[in-house]
Structure formats: C-alpha cells, structure tokens
C-alpha cells in the first residue's frame, strides 16, 4: 500500500471518509435511523472491507460525509472524501478530475409527470415548466436536446431530487427530469404513487459508478477487484435484488438485461 496515497492516508487516520448522498433513493439515502443506506452504500461497504484487509486496520472507522450533486466532485478532487457512494454518472469530463470503479447501474434521463398531464416525450414539454437539478447530467441532457429540437422550456432550478419532485407534486413544475431509476424512487415515496408516471425515451445514457480519487491506481484496482469478485460470484445480483426487487421502498425494478451483461463483462478474471 506504500505506493497508494489514499491507502496511506486512510492508514494514518484510521478512518475512511465516505461521501454519501442524503436522498438518492435507493442508492444512497438517510434511513429513519439517521444512517446512510442503500445499494451503493452496500457495495461500498464491501470495498471498505477490502480496504480493512489491505491496510490491516481491523477497527477502521467510517466517517460519513454528506455530499450533494454540486459538492461531490470538488470534495473528491480536493481529497475530503476517499470514495463517493451515491448515484453519480461516470462520464469523460468528470474523469478529468476523478476516477470511477466499474459500472454498477445503468439508467438515463427520463421525465416524471402527473398522470393525465399529456406529457410523454420531451417534445410535449414545449411551453411547459420543467424542474431540473442544478449541476446534474440530466440538466445538461435536457437543455441539449431542447436546444437541438428548438423546444422552448421554462425551467425551475432545484437543489436536489426531493426539491425537484416537490415542484411536480405541488404543481410548480409540470415535470421533473432525472435518471429514470431515481424518478421511480421518488414516485414510490410520494403520498399517492398512482398519480404519477415516468415516461419517454432515454434522453441520455447514464452509467453509475462509485467515484474514487484520481491518480491512485493501486487503490482503484482494489475497488475494481472487489466489485469484479461480487459480480462474478453473483453477490452483486443479490445486493441488487435487496434494493430493487422489490426493495424496501417498493421500487420493483428487476435486473435489466443491459446491467446483467455489464456485470458479466466487468467480472474480470484474476
């Protein structure tokens, strides 16, 4: 571990700083016990187990650092957090500042709206109000497509998913555009889920990955190895089912074929 700055600092501190989201259901959110939980958190715990083994720190402590869409990259780049367990899209721009572990989930931008609002595709949003979460890939995707197609949108900028969702629920916006899985999560938690729908084609391709600091291949390899093992052994599938099929929030999303393939492809041999 001597050639890994991240492992070295973790060893020195005896603590690992884990970035997590507070309301990315069911990937990473604060449960009613006040602790972070979710699909990404479970996967990260396996990684942390591996770190424990690698560093020989049996009593390695976890320091939970809440992050938002706006702060996560900066906090990773400046070394505040050692890994980010949320619902972060892996893209090439971001790879200028951070690195990623293998893809753990695949989603894309879709639109959630009230049933009966007549909205199915982005084209239907012409002249309507759409809520967008500041600094997300979804915001960029929607704005790009709208610009390409000459669709005139009114936008409401929100800080996070619940705020975006609230704007739809309270009628401030007609639709909220986000990763489709998060939209299902939001709907499942609303007061009357049957009122809402997720519709349209994928407006972007968003593969999620656990973020790790850049320029530390030893540390990153440890993470890849952990995840490859989980995917090969089928443990990753079990964890997936625990959160999505149907999952504690009743989200009910069986493992898709694409993700199943992705698990297979990423289950690299030793």
């Amino acid at each position, binding site marked *: 571990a001597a050639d890994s700055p991240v492992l070295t600092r973790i060893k020195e501190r005896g603590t690992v700083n884990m970035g997590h989201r*507070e309301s990315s259901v069911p990937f990473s959110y604060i449960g009613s016990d006040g602790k972070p939980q979710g699909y990404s958190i479970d996967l990260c715990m396996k990684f942390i187990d591996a770190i424990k083994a690698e560093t020989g720190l049996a009593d390695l402590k976890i320091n939970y650092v809440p992050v*938002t869409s706006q702060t996560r990259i900066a906090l990773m780049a400046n070394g505040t957090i050692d890994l980010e367990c949320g619902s972060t899209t892996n893209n090439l721009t971001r790879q200028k500042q951070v690195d990623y572990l293998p893809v753990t989930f695949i989603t894309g931008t879709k639109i959630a709206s009230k049933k009966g609002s007549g909205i199915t595709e982005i084209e239907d949003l012409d002249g309507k109000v759409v809520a967008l979460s500041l600094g997300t890939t979804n915001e960029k995707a929607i704005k790009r497509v709208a610009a390409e197609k000459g669709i005139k949108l009114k936008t409401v900028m929100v800080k996070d998913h619940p705020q975006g969702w609230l704007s739809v629920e309270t009628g401030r916006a007609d639709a909220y555009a986000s990763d489709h899985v998060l939209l299902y999560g939001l709907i499942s938690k609303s007061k009357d889920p049957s009122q809402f729908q997720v519709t349209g084609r994928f407006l972007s391709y968003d593969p999620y990955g656990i973020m790790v600091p850049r320029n530390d291949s030893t540390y990153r390899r440890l993470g890849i190895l952990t995840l490859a093992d989980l995917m090969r052994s089928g443990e990753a599938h079990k964890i997936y089912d625990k959160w999505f099929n149907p999952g504690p929030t009743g989200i009910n999303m069986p493992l898709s074929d694409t993700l199943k393939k992705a698990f297979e492809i990423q289950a690299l041999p030793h």
Partner: protein
Amino acid sequence: MFNNFDGKVVLDNLHFLIEGMQTTLLLTVVAIIGGLLLGTLLALARLSPFKTLSFVAGTYVNFFRSMPLILVIFWFYFLVPHILGRPVGGFYSVLVAFVLFEAAYYCEIMRAGIQSVRQGQIYAGQALGLTYQQNMRYVVLPQAFRNMIPILMTQAIILFQDTSLVYVVGIKDFLVSADLVANRENRILEMFTTVAIVYFVICLSGSLFIRRLQEKFNL
C-alpha cells in the same frame, strides 16, 4: 394543506432535530469565541499606531464585509482542504469560514466599543496618574466592554441565524436535519414551519433578554 398539518412527524423525528440543533449551537458558539478572539486582535491592530498593521487589518475587514456569507462558505468549503493538503470534514471548513467572516464584524464592534469611551474619561484616568496600560485595563476596557455587550449579543443572535446558511453545503445543522426529515416523510410544510417557529422563539427570547439587560444596566 394546513388542515392536515401533522405535528406527529415533528415529535417522531425529535432526536434527529435535536442533533441538528446541537450542530447549529456548536457552530454558533465556536464561531463566536473564535470570531471574538480574532476580532479583538484585529480591532487592536486597526487602532494601533503602526500604519501597516492597521492597513492590513482594515483591508481584511473590508474584504470580508464586501462578500456574501454564502460565497465565503463556498470558498472555504473547497479551499480549506486544498490549503491543508489533507481532507477535513465539511464542518471544520465551514467553521473556519464563520470564524474568519465573523471576526471582521466583531472587529468593528470592538473598535466602536473602545472608541465609545469618552475622551474625558481617558483624560480623567491620565490625570490621576494611571499609565496607558492601567488606564486601558481599569478605565477604558471595562466601559468599552460594558457598552459593547448588547451589540455583541445581538451579533451572536445574527450569527445564530446565519449558521442556517451552511444548508448550501449540506452540513447537518438544524435546518438541514429538518429538510431531510421533510423530504423523507414528505412533510415539508410541517417541518419548515417548525423550523421557523423554533428560530423565532430562540431569537426573540434572545433579543428580549438583551433589551432587559440594557434597561437594567442602563446601557
């Protein structure tokens, strides 16, 4: 929507809110102490006969007083880890931001306090043969501090309110905790109303207390 106001959600999550309030109070108290210490040094520097020193202190004060607190919070949230070269929790970054920011305001309060002591009092002390230090120690500072107490305390209340701005970087203070509960339980009306009432009650009691104190000691 208030006809189905659900007070139970507040009670159910009370421990969570209390934890948030503890963070808020911790932040407030540490920022007050740090801000006061640094602010006093700055005030002495500003009043010192050394031109460079008072210029540097003056620039510091004007710089921070020109910036929105939110921007300062952002700055330090990202800057502190970079400067230290190692990660620190967001809480500490924010703490640094508050101490440095508040120091600029406390500096001005301290300065005004010292200058509020009438020239005649300084003459009177000198005329009795007190040395400069003795005059400061026994005549000027006790009065300055007495004159400042209400403003210092008012500033403390403002600071207490200002800590809510850590919301923008997600430090789990009182407001953010309430926000989390609001999102999780989908009870945004109840939670924000509660937050407003709690802040109001605390701050109003504070201001009333200050006013009582002022009347009592005829400040």
